[in-house]
């Protein structure tokens, strides 16, 4: 009898200990997030000023002088912000319509063999390491154009965004009730009209969330831009010349001991931007689902 009680007790304790262990280790996962946020915030906030966003990167010599004089490094990341905006803008403008059209095709023809193959290839493209997208864009765009350019950078970002937009469109359109489409067709609209006027507006929330997430995923990408956009130390608007981007600047600062102080301001800016896009997307997704 006592043996039996002992055994039950042991089982109950194992259960308790396991639960505590699960909660403990799950809670530990939050530590890196706060450690990273904390470090970037503490080291970065002192650099943030108006001029940090309006002035281009200083030269290593200027930075050295400022450090020697005990002053904060002058200049900022305006060249990177403008480059990021130009490349992301071009990539988004092309990727969104193509991604939506392809997503609608996959959702409407989900039984066709061709659509199944395209769907698999989309997964494959989504899983392709970003550094390989960089190589490819180098071979496709940089070599024929005989030089690094903002166009090449945006092609790389476009290839990375496309599968994300396709997936989110496909999934959103697929879960719309069939009655919606049938009602539209019953009113005499043809397939094209119903898709453009009924299906896409109803799926807007999901598609929009997908676009936000796609932008937030590629905005921090460094590797594909290293071989395509290259970087540039002054503000530039030409799309056929090398251009900078915020993550590229972080990489430059990391490699140049004289500019290392600027890392944290740039990282803080990038981090805040990416995480707020993420949270906005999550908020929209929740709002649309309810």
């Amino acid at each position, binding site marked *: 009898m006592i043996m039996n009680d002992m055994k039950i007790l042991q089982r109950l304790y194992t259960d308790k200990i396991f639960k505590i262990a699960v909660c403990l280790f799950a809670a530990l996962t939050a530590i890196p997030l706060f450690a990273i946020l904390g470090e970037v915030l503490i080291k970065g906030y002192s650099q943030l000023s108006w001029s940090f966003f309006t002035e281009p990167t200083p030269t290593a010599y200027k930075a050295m002088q400022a450090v020697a004089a005990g002053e904060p490094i002058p200049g900022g990341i305006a060249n990177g912000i403008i480059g990021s905006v130009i490349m992301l803008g071009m990539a988004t403008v092309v990727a969104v319509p193509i991604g939506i059209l*392809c997503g609608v095709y996959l959702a409407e023809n989900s039984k066709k063999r061709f659509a199944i193959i395209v769907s698999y290839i989309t997964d494959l493209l989504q899983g392709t390491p970003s550094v390989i997208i960089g190589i*490819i864009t180098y071979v*496709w765009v940089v070599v024929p154009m005989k030089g690094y350019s903002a166009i090449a950078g945006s092609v790389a970002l476009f290839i990375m965004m496309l599968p994300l937009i396709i997936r989110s469109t496909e999934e959103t359109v697929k879960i719309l009730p069939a009655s919606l489409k049938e009602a539209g067709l019953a009113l005499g609209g043809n397939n094209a009209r119903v898709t453009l006027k009924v299906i896409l507006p109803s799926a807007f929330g999901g598609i929009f969330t997908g676009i936000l997430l796609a932008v937030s995923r590629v905005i921090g990408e460094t*590797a594909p831009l290293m071989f395509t956009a290259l970087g540039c130390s002054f503000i530039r608007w030409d799309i056929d010349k090398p251009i900078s981007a915020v993550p590229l600047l*972080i990489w430059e600062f990391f490699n140049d001991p004289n500019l290392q102080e600027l*890392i944290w301001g740039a990282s803080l800016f990038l981090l805040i931007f990416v*995480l707020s896009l993420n*949270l906005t997307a999550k908020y929209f997704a929740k709002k649309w689902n309810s």
Partner: protein
Amino acid sequence: MSDKLFRIFLFIAACLIPIICGGIIYALVTDAYESFEHFGFLNFIFSSEWDYTEGNEQYGALPFIVGTMMTTFLALLFCIPFSLPVALFVGEYFKGTPVAAILSTVTDLLAGIPSIIYGLWGFFTLRPIIMALDISPEGSSILTASMVLSIMIIPYAASLSAEFIKMVPADLKEGAYSLGATRFEVIRKIVFPVAGSGIFSSYILAIGRALGETMTVTMLIGNTNQIPDGITATGNSMASIIANQFGEADGLKLSSLIAIGLILFLITAVINMIGKIMIKRARIS
């Protein structure tokens, strides 16, 4: 707009995806060909020389393949003790409660942090700790890179595993409870066996992510071109050697780097396809 025209538009958009993918494979193969032809395909993969003295150029992919395998495997090993509890927390213990929503937001945000910032954190925070503990003299090593890599893949493994744990039918679990099982026993005997293949496939996809991760690894692995002789040694992964040397490469070296890219592309493609097919199967059953 006429229906026919609209259909054509949709079809063209859909055709673009296979064209891009075909273009990727075509470009990688044609540009890697010079290197394969010069060294021989198998010789290129199994050679551990990486020497770019002019006139005596020797390029082999083995050190980087080994480096990638080591970082990926270690990252997976470090990630499991955290991602599995997160999945159980979100999918079983606190399913549908606000705490679970908070934890999944935290892991989502972890997934959103750009890899270059993970690299910075690893370099300026984790590396001094590794040095202080005297694990590796320079602080940059396979181990350092894998530790940060493991944090980066936790969100992917955890959120997908949680999805499968949530789908375990309630009547199965209730049956076990009615027989007097404790929650731990239900998790071990019911949840894991039922959700097992789904959980397994989510780790395969996490491996797929870890294989191609570039910036973090480049910043932390030490960037040396020989086969690492232990986990505290420095090395290079396939992605990091490309990131490091692609910029100034030309001729045979460029072709060899693209060949490494092709190998990496094929490995990730195979791993991802296995993962996706397994997930589709797990969802149906």
